[in-house]
């Protein structure tokens, strides 16, 4: 299966002898051995890749008509919508593409959580994925500033002010980030520069992500290692076809938004030009940041009285910011918090239940993030924040030790084919 292909075309053969791009590509996407039992949750990695390409393409073209100055930015976006050929399509594809990117990546991450894809030997693969996620958040944040609407402006103001919690240097850092004393033209210009750069950083990280993936190959729904050739099938045509089908379904969903409800996921206030003198009644981030926003706002004002620690450095604001960053950082520890001998939740009866609670918890956090932090909503937000960290920092290690896991199958092929291992021997011969 892994023998180098004989290239018939003399030009291809000539190039390949000097730079084996064709052989490399063949091994990576044609005869690449893939677990034979991958389900549709494994489509979302390649979908994320396709969305990244769509985002870079539409973004590049939008940049041809976008004007990054505080006097022109809002109008240039409106001009794209009204005067530029297919400008409405380009912008709606880009704006909804951001939402789709996060949707796909969230599903991709929760797939990894369910099937233990972050476990050894795929920790670095998981890390790179988290770095991609962080880069995506940075890209989305600076990108949302560019249309220069009210939400753009005040979102940028609020998020850059998070850095004011840094002890002693906070205000200096915020001024440095903004290039001034408030969000203004220098801020918009640098955000635009970073918004152009970061997608290519993501692209590079994706390359590393795939490299790490191809070292130990894909995890699979059983979470057991690939043992024989019979456990795998070539990527092409089996998973190219499956990914293509999934892509078709995804594009229907994506363009249902882009064509029919292009502003459903956006905030109407962002169609009001930025006004540095008037803050909208409520500032709400895009939906994909809502859970983190809920964590940010969950810390009680009397936090210091409760804990009595570091009263100078840790105010409620500071603690909220720390918790929000911690909610992502803690994911880096996951491969060590989870020491269970079994990867897949299929064979972990208790983790399987807690997984769905954790997913529900994240959705609740998102719902709380969309509402003002008052009354019941604030209490729910605090409990959900607490549960988020308890699940990862307490339940995961405890489960690893005490959960009684179900017996694992001998191999992938033994579990998914009627003849079991005899089939695997047969496939090996083919």
């Amino acid at each position: 299966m892994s023998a180098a292909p004989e290239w018939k075309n003399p030009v291809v053969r000539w190039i390949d002898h000097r730079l084996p791009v064709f052989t490399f590509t063949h091994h990576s996407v044609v005869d690449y051995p893939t677990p034979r039992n991958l389900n549709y949750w494994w489509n979302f990695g390649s979908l994320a890749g396709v969305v990244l390409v769509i985002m870079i393409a539409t973004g590049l073209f939008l940049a041809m008509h976008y004007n990054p100055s505080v006097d022109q930015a809002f109008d240039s976006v409106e001009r794209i919508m009204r005067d530029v050929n297919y400008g409405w399509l380009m912008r709606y594809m880009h704006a909804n593409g951001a939402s789709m990117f996060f949707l796909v990546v969230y599903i991709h991450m929760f797939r990894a959580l369910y099937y233990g894809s972050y476990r050894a030997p795929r920790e670095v693969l998981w890390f790179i994925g988290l770095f991609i996620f962080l880069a995506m958040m940075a890209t989305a944040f600076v990108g949302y500033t560019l249309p220069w609407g009210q939400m753009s402006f005040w979102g940028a103001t609020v998020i850059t002010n998070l850095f004011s919690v840094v002890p002693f240097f906070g205000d200096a850092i915020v001024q440095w980030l903004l290039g001034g004393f408030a969000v203004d033209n220098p801020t918009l210009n640098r955000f635009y520069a970073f918004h152009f750069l970061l997608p290519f950083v993501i692209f590079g990280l994706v390359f590393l992500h795939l490299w790490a993936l191809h070292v130990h190959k894909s995890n699979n729904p059983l979470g057991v290692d690939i043992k024989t050739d019979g456990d795998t099938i070539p990527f092409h045509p089996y998973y190219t076809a499956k990914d293509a089908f999934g892509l078709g379904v995804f594009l229907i969903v994506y363009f249902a938004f882009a064509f029919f409800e292009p502003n459903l996921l956006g905030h109407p206030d962002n169609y009001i030009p930025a006004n540095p003198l008037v803050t909208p009644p409520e500032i709400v981030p895009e939906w994909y940041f809502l859970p983190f926003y809920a964590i940010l706002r969950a810390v009680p004002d009397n936090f210091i009285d409760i804990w009595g620690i570091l009263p100078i450095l840790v105010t409620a604001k500071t603690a909220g910011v720390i918790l929000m960053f911690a909610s992502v950082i803690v994911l880096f520890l996951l491969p060590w918090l989870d020491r269970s001998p079994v990867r897949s939740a299929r064979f972990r009866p208790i983790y399987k239940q807690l997984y769905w609670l954790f997913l529900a918890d994240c959705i609740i956090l998102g719902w709380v993030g969309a509402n003002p932090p008052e009354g019941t909503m604030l209490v729910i937000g605090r409990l959900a924040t607490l549960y988020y960290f308890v699940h990862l920092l307490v339940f995961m290690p405890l489960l690893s030790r005490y959960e009684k896991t179900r017996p694992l199958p001998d191999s992938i092929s033994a579990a998914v084919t009627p003849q079991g291992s005899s089939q695997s021997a047969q496939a090996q011969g083919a």
Partner: protein
Amino acid sequence: MADTSTATADGHEHEEDRRDFLLTSTVVVGAAGVALAAWPFIDFMNPSADVLALASLEFDLSTMEPGQAITVTWRSKPIFIRRRTAAEIDEAKKVPLSELKDPQADADRVKEGKDEWLVMIGICTHLGCIPAGQKATDSKGEFGGWFCPCHGSHYDTSGRIRKGPAPKNLAIPPYAFTNDTTVRIG
């Protein structure tokens, strides 16, 4: 996919029809989809509606005296408008076409009955510089029209190339007189 082919009775290799059909139709539909998706990207780079809206402009010429020239901007290009004197018109008319590098009669370069108005795109046909000759103090070249300082092209009082590297006469934009003293360019 050698294992999916079956040998027919006469010994020819015969690929499975249904699979071939599915593969071909999938590739064709996919390629058509990609091609259609490419169009919005290509068209996105074409002039937009606001740019096209400025593609036609009107200018009032009532204040211009004979011998005077003005330069206006149309589609981001300089347009030379000169109200020629009788002597300049005469000079342009009497040049035999055989002497011209890009033969064109003066009458073909102005509107009928509007001999004194010369409207041209003021871009040298050599490499795109803007010829001198609009201002009274400018060098007008050896033929009393325009002179391109970049590579020394001389244009006559009809804007025709007479000497130098430029291959063509100065171009005439699409225009029309909407009344005696108003011209619409574009």
